């Protein structure tokens, strides 16, 4: 398939806020179930092992008009919960048999309880993860949390979720993670071949496709785009961070690129790259998932940094690994986790002589000109600085 077609398919998936793919997947076999999850991370392996489709719900973007959702939130709360409620009350996600709300912030946390009240016939769970990373402390607690999810989903599926089911799912997701790592490595190596506006869509497709299919899609995209050489520009290489939950509109990502930045790493859809390497397949599957979470997972604002010197390490490593020249901090308005993290990260970047710029967005931001201008000035300053 040509790269254009692949991207078009991903775009269609991205724009389909009635989740037809999910409906089709369910209709293909009677009794199939789908479970939604919000950012940033849930162990999708457990959902998959129960024979269900994990579906990432990342708000309504700039494509839906939020009418009812606004009646649930004051003006000073970010947008993703209101557009998610809009998806819920308008029946767009009624194909989901359940929803998981990961412990990312107080807004999503409270949304879990609102969902329990508003969608009484659905399975709803607040999915807590440990902030203590010792095996016998946080690990044991986390294994127990995962066991509850496993039991609940088994009940919903009407069948046991065996260790072997879990191992097979871990294996499949390991392949998906590998494909995602390859995609990010490829983009960092040849960002002109894999613009982030495309990589974003290819990744986002993983929120609705079964993992096997998504892995193939990622592989196909890398092969297809590599076969069609594109023009290389003298852009500034940047890491984009702060957008781990509410998503910037696609137009904003395009604007940053058009302004002269190559995004070589980002924190969109972290769930696809949460586990930094393969999760061990042999042995106790829940413990393997737990250990990967505790010791080998991505860092983000909603995770506690045990020591002062750990703060910013992950971002610095991303800058180093992907050869970035600067950092764009793009956070959703009213996003406490991102905005409270921001001064700490900016200070650390400054200490390391890494240029940065910061702005806020909402998922329905329409005015791109100021952001394009800011990103353009930033790209120019990086270029000037590196030329000096």
């Amino acid at each position, binding site marked *: 398939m040509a790269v254009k077609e692949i991207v078009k398919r991903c775009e269609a998936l991205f724009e389909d806020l009635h989740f037809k793919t999910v409906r089709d997947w369910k209709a293909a076999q009677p009794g199939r179930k789908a479970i939604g999850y919000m950012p940033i991370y849930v162990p999708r392996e457990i959902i998959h092992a129960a024979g269900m489709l994990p579906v990432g719900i990342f708000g309504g973007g700039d494509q839906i008009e939020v009418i009812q959702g606004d009646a649930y*939130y004051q003006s000073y*709360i970010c947008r993703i919960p209101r557009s998610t409620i809009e998806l819920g009350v308008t029946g767009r996600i009624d194909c989901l048999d359940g929803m998981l709300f990961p412990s990312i912030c107080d807004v999503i946390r409270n949304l879990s309880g609102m969902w329990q009240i508003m969608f009484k016939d659905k399975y709803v769970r607040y*999915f807590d993860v440990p902030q203590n990373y010792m095996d016998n402390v946080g690990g044991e607690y986390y294994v127990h949390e995962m066991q509850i999810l496993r039991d609940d989903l088994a009940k919903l599926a009407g069948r046991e979720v065996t260790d072997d089911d879990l191992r097979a799912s871990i294996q499949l997701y390991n392949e998906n993670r590998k494909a995602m790592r390859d995609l990010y490595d490829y983009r960092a190596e040849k960002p002109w071949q894999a613009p982030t506006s495309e990589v974003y869509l290819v990744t986002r497709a993983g929120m609705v496709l079964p993992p096997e299919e998504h892995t193939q899609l990622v592989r196909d995209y890398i092969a297809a785009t590599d076969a069609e050489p594109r023009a290389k520009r003298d852009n500034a290489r940047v890491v984009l961070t702060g957008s781990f939950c509410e998503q910037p509109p696609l137009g904003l990502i395009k604007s940053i690129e058009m302004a002269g930045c190559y995004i070589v790493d980002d924190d969109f859809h972290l769930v696809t790259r949460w586990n930094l390497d393969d999760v061990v397949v042999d042995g106790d599957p829940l413990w393997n998932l737990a250990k990967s979470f505790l010791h080998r997972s991505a860092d983000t604002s909603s995770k506690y940094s045990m020591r002062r010197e750990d703060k910013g390490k992950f971002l610095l490593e991303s800058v180093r690994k992907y050869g970035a020249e600067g950092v764009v901090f793009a956070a959703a308005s009213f996003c406490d*986790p991102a905005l*409270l993290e921001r001064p700490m990260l900016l200070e650390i970047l400054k200490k390391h002589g890494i240029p940065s710029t910061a702005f*806020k967005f909402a998922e329905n931001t329409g005015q791109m000109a100021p952001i394009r201008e800011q990103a353009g000035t930033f790209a120019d300053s990086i270029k000037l600085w590196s030329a000096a």
Partner: protein
Amino acid sequence: MSTQKVDTTALPGKKPAPKNVQKEDAMWLQKEMINANYHDLAIAHDVGRKVSATFVPGNLNELLMCFDFARSLPETNALQNGMRKKSGKMIMDAERDGHSEDVCTYVKADLGMMMGGEIGPTGEKLPVPDVLLLSYTGCFTFMKWFELVRQKYDCETTMLHVPYQGDGKINESMVQYVVKQLKEEVIPTLERVSGVKFDIDRLRQYMKESTKAEEDLVAVLQSAKNRPSPIDGYFGGVYYIGPIFTAFRGTPEASKFYSVLRGEIEERVRQKKGPVTPDGEMTEEKYRLVVEGPPNWTSFRDFWKMFYEDGAVVVASTYSKVGGVYDFGFRHNPDEPLESLARYCLGCYTNLNFPQRIDMICKYIDEYQADGLLINSIKSCNSFSAGQLLMLREIEKRTGKPAAFIESDLVDPRYFSSANIKNRLESYFQMINQKRRATAAVH
């Protein structure tokens, strides 16, 4: 007022009560206690004491006392600065230093205070903490808050992760998770920083004191079930919870304070008296309200006045449960000290899920025979505020009582619009009257 008196002359910084404001004796006493704690903090390093900082919800005061720490509570510092009209500048200083206008103003007031040389609410300089005990019960912002403080001061931090009651209950795994963190992470860190060995019997002893104070506090808060209510459970309530939610839970001073307070309040019940307000005793109780959400501190007295001027008394509030929910039976248990600390943290109000919060408010409306619910939605605080509009509708539906919604902020004076709030309250009181008339017509 009751004639029962407590000798507060031993407390430093005691000033005679200003004549233009009326308070119960216990209210003065609590003020003395809080001021005395600021003085303790100010001199702590000079007298060789280590200093801890920790948050109100899920605070482990008894445990910190086992290591002889002087105890600072940054939220209390922020609110005290708010009441003394100092927080506005602090917040703006923090914003100028790169903190977003969108985030919790408690955090910014604290960081702004640091930038201004750590001059505390009473004018004495507060020390840099030797340890930050980060127990983030019921709010993620706490975690960022202490990460920010740590980044600035490089002080030792110990984290106690308290899982959220997502299912509306506490399971054994959650309790054990907290207990293990106490044993393996928190206690060893506190031992190391303080140089004091942990003695569980000392903890038990403090907990015995806590229980006494908890018992009396519950009696005080529940006195509002009487008609007229002898207390205001929100505006007055913040004075009542002061000592037990901060550095005093587990101390004999707190036990004494709560027993005096209880005595005063029981006397008011006997005399069928209404609450004491800054302008004197409230004589006619016209409206009985339940309030959800924290108060505004920067215009605290003006805000309160809008209620008592119209004869509105708050009979129950959720804010008076942020530092511990005691009215449904929980007490610190000296026989199971660590488990009980865990259950305490797990049970604080903002760690309850939405259906639990709604149930609790409906129960208050019923048991305290309230006319309705008022939500003071705080711009700063996602933990409280996200979802309150649904809460309002659900509670109205379930109780059939009218509810109203106002918006303000904790310590940012820019978000307190006196005229708007007053208008809103007045229409709300009218709504209650209408509802009463309608009900009377039906019966």
